[in-house]
C-alpha cells in the first residue's frame, strides 16, 4: 500500500497518456450519473454530451501517444474518429431537441419519469 501510494505521488506530476484517460473516465462517470438520475430530458441530453466528450478525449489522447501496440501509426486515425463523433453528436442533439419539444407540446412536461405512456 505504501509503495503504491508513493508510486502515485511520483506519477501524478508527470502528465502522460493516463492523465488524459483518467480525466475522460471522470467525465464519463459524471455523464452516466447525469443520464441515470436527472428527471429533465434536457439534462439527460447534457449527460450524453459529457459521455461523448469523454470518448473523444480518449480517441485523441490515444492518437497523440501513438498507442502501445501501434508505434508506426501516423496518429491521425483517432482524430478522424473524433471528427465523426462530433458530427454524430450534432445530429443527435438536433433530433433529440426536436423530440423533446414535441413531447413538451403533447405532455406539457419534459420530466422523463412522468412520460410513461406511449399512447394518449
Amino acid at each position, binding site marked *: 500500500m505504501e509503495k503504491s501510494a508513493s508510486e502515485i505521488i511520483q506519477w501524478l506530476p508527470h502528465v502522460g497518456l493516463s492523465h488524459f484517460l483518467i480525466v475522460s473516465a471522470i467525465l464519463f462517470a*459524471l455523464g452516466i450519473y447525469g443520464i441515470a438520475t436527472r428527471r429533465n430530458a434536457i439534462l439527460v441530453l447534457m449527460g450524453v454530451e459529457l459521455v461523448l*466528450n469523454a470518448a473523444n478525449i480518449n480517441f485523441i489522447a490515444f492518437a*497523440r501517444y501513438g498507442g502501445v501496440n501501434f508505434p508506426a501509426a501516423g496518429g491521425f486515425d483517432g482524430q478522424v474518429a473524433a471528427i465523426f463523433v462530433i458530427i454524430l453528436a450534432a445530429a443527435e442533439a438536433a433530433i433529440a431537441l426536436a423530440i423533446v419539444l414535441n413531447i413538451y407540446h403533447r405532455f406539457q412536461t419534459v420530466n422523463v419519469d412522468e412520460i410513461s405512456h406511449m399512447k394518449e
Partner: protein
Amino acid sequence: MQLFDIVFFVFAFITVASAFIVVFSRNIIYSAFSLLFTFFGVAALYVLIQADFLAVTQVLIYVGGILVLMLFGVMLTNKVVNVELKGGTLHSIPALILVAVVAGTLGGIFYSTWKDVPAPATSVATTTTKTLGEMLMTSYLLPFEIASIILLVALMGAAMFARKRTKL
C-alpha cells in the same frame, strides 16, 4: 513540473469541476452555462494533445451549435416566468454507487495499463488540418459521405419533428 503539466492540471480541473456543476446543480440554467466551461476545457485539452483542428471544431460545433440548441430547449420547455427551473433527481444513491464503481474500474484500468507510456518523441510541427483533410478525402471518403447524408437526414427529420402538426 513543467509548464505543460501545470496547464494540463488547470484545464483538467476546470473541465471536471464544471462537469460536476452540470450534473449536480439544481438549476438547469446553471447546468447549461457550466457545460460551456466543460466544452472549453475539453477544447483546451485537445490543444494540449496537439489536435488544433479538433479544438476549433469543438468550440464551433459544441459551444456554438449544441450548447445554443440546449439553451433554446431549456427556454422553450420550461416555464421561465414561474421559476420552475428545478430539475429533480431520481434514485441518486444507486446511481452514485454504480458510477463510483464504473469510475474506479475505468480509472484503475487506465492507470495500471497505461501509466508507463512514454511521451511521444516528436511533436507535430505543422497544423493537423491538412493531414486530416487529406485523410477525409482518401481513406475515410465513404464514412465522410455517409456522415454528410446523416446530417442531411437529421436536418430534415428535426425540421419535420419540430414544426406544427398539420393535416397532410
